């Protein structure tokens, strides 16, 4: 059910329904990169959805496909990427079949992204205030006269001290934490329905990380914005996210509510990842490593479960397709032949 108030009319007749449930539905998405050294099967049958106001994390080692998933939603993957199956529906609009001009209306307005390295993502030769004004002018129904003041308002909103003076600053004049705040101001300038945060605090100090993540969480809550957090840090994900999806070698292996995932990890890889993360234990030898490496995704003979070659619970039937999808209570989903027993 939709009430008319949730539908946003954009230019060129593009309509986004912010009230639709789910707001974002990624269904059976498969994507590959065609490279000189072969076809890299970067994503295979990825499915998840995100409701309005919900925060979800994609967690995994580097090379697991977290950022590729985020870029696929934004439609900004490399030329070599090809979607080979599945769909991405955002607010009632099929993003994969939408043309470039339609996407241009949505991106930056309803769909925004924060990149990992703000200093690289920001334009180095344009004052930060102007960069925010640019977004507002393109999407925000703001006149050229109003734009500078609105940009300063945004800088104040992300708590940049002395925003009026700082609006004239260039990215190199600001610290990493400040640049990331500018990046957030840029992404949130048009109050998007969905924010993708790709490792937003990697490389920042731990205290700055807390401030930045609190800021994103607070703005998300006040605007009912959905957030997809891409991170390799389980601790960070558990602190800020309602749900966590664990990725491994281009698969989502398990999705669960945050508390359930930690209390009751059922996929062997999830359990290993939790056991390898420092924080919960007091002694170094209580941490266990994850044996083996990610499989080479260019291989033709990838097993149905791409973790099976590293897995201690592997049995003969792990090599036989299909990979079973197991749905437990409360949206807890995992893909495994031999899941761990339920915690008591």
């Amino acid at each position: 059910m939709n009430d008319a108030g949730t539908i946003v009319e954009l230019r060129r007749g593009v309509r986004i329904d912010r009230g639709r449930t789910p707001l974002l539905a990624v269904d059976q998405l498969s994507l590959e990169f065609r490279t000189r050294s072969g076809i890299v099967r970067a994503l295979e049958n990825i499915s998840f959805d995100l409701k309005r106001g919900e925060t979800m994390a994609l967690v995994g080692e580097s090379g697991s496909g977290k950022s590729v998933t985020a870029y696929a939603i934004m439609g900004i993957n490399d030329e070599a990427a090809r979607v080979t199956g599945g769909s991405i529906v955002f607010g009632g609009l099929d993003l994969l079949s939408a043309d470039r001009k339609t996407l241009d209306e949505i991106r930056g307005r309803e769909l925004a992204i924060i990149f990992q390295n703000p200093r690289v993502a920001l334009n180095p030769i344009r004052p930060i205030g102007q960069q925010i004004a640019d977004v507002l002018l393109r999407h925000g129904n703001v006149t050229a006269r109003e734009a500078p003041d609105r940009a300063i308002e945004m800088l104040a909103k992300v708590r940049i001290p002395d925003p009026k003076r700082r609006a004239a600053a260039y990215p190199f004049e600001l610290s990493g934490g400040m640049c990331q705040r500018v990046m957030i101001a840029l992404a949130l300038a048009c109050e998007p329905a969905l924010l993708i945060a790709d490792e937003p605090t990697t490389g920042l100090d731990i205290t700055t990380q807390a401030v930045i993540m609190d800021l994103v969480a607070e703005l998300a809550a006040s605007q009912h914005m959905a957030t997809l957090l891409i991170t390799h840090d389980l601790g960070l994900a558990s602190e800020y996210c309602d749900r966590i999806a664990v990725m491994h070698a281009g698969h989502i292996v398990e999705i669960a509510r945050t508390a359930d995932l930690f209390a009751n990890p059922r996929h062997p890889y999830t359990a290993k990842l939790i056991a390898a993360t420092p924080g919960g234990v007091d002694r170094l030898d209580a941490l266990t490593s994850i044996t083996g490496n990610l499989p080479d995704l260019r291989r033709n003979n990838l097993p149905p479960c791409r973790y099976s070659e590293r897995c201690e619970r592997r049995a003969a039937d792990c090599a036989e397709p299909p990979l079973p999808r197991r749905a437990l209570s409360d949206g807890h989903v995992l893909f495994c032949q031999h899941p761990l027993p339920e915690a008591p």
Partner: protein
Amino acid sequence: MSDAEPLLDVAGLRKLYPVGARDWRGAAASRLHAVDGVSLTIGRGETVGLVGESGCGKSTLVRLLTRLIDPSDGTIRFDGADVGTVPARRFGRVPQRAQIQMVFQDATDSLNPRFTAGRSIADPLMRLRGLSGAALRARIEEAARLTGLPPELLTRFPHQLSGGQKARVGIARAIAVEPKLLILDEPTSALDVSVQVVILQLLEDLKRRLNLSYLFVSHDLNVVRLLCDRILVMYLGRIVESGRAAEIFRAPAHPYTKALLSAVPTPGVSSRERRIALPGEPRSPVDPDPTICALYGRCPKGTERCRSEAPALREIAPGRYAACHFPYEGAVSSEPRLAVAGSR
């Protein structure tokens, strides 16, 4: 010399950089206090953690200890010898140069891309030990064996190695010349958790087998806690708290330490409620007012006294030091049998 004497004994170390406008003689009017009166010891076989935000002077301190730059003031005694007075330019030729080695943050950036792994490990052996031929080869293979680097990888270039393997090369290169002190600058921050555990356990194992001392510089307090015996917390060029790692983690005494610890995300636990936020930015390190506490203005405790009298680092419990007029109670009174030195 006796074993009771610490391996490294640093007293009153300062590094001031001239900044800003210069007068007619070319002398700068202002001084940036990068390291401002740091005293510390590292015992034989001890691991000391150095934590603090970026810009607090950690890197400058490390560069002073590795004698890449000359101190403005203070003494550095290493293994009974005064190394602080040797000019940085000539330090490369003194025997202590081989005994203080460093493992850098990013294994990819710190390895010469045109050197094979074996050549990278050979470099310090040739320069500092003058080894060649069979002796050199034997020493390289020994270092590779100690760090768990398969000998067949020694002929590979950095781009042909995984992140974990590159980290091993970086460590092998540092221990090849048989140092006594290893300075580790965020050695695992670029690694995935699965590999991080293995490298941390390797470091712990090497320390025991080779009787090394570590200075472990890191943002990741979860890792610091697992690896370190003692911790030094640095803020604006000064050490604001030091003591045994377990005790600092249990009950931080300094408000800055408390804020730092409360920002650490712990998997499966939400710490947002117990977080202490430090508003604003650190004070300027240029010509700091010696009568104001460095944290004044951001500190939740800030009183009149903090503004008129900078607190000195004092012993608040045996082996526990804090630079605060009002250290948190738990740290002071946790063990009632102890007389609290210097308390009011």
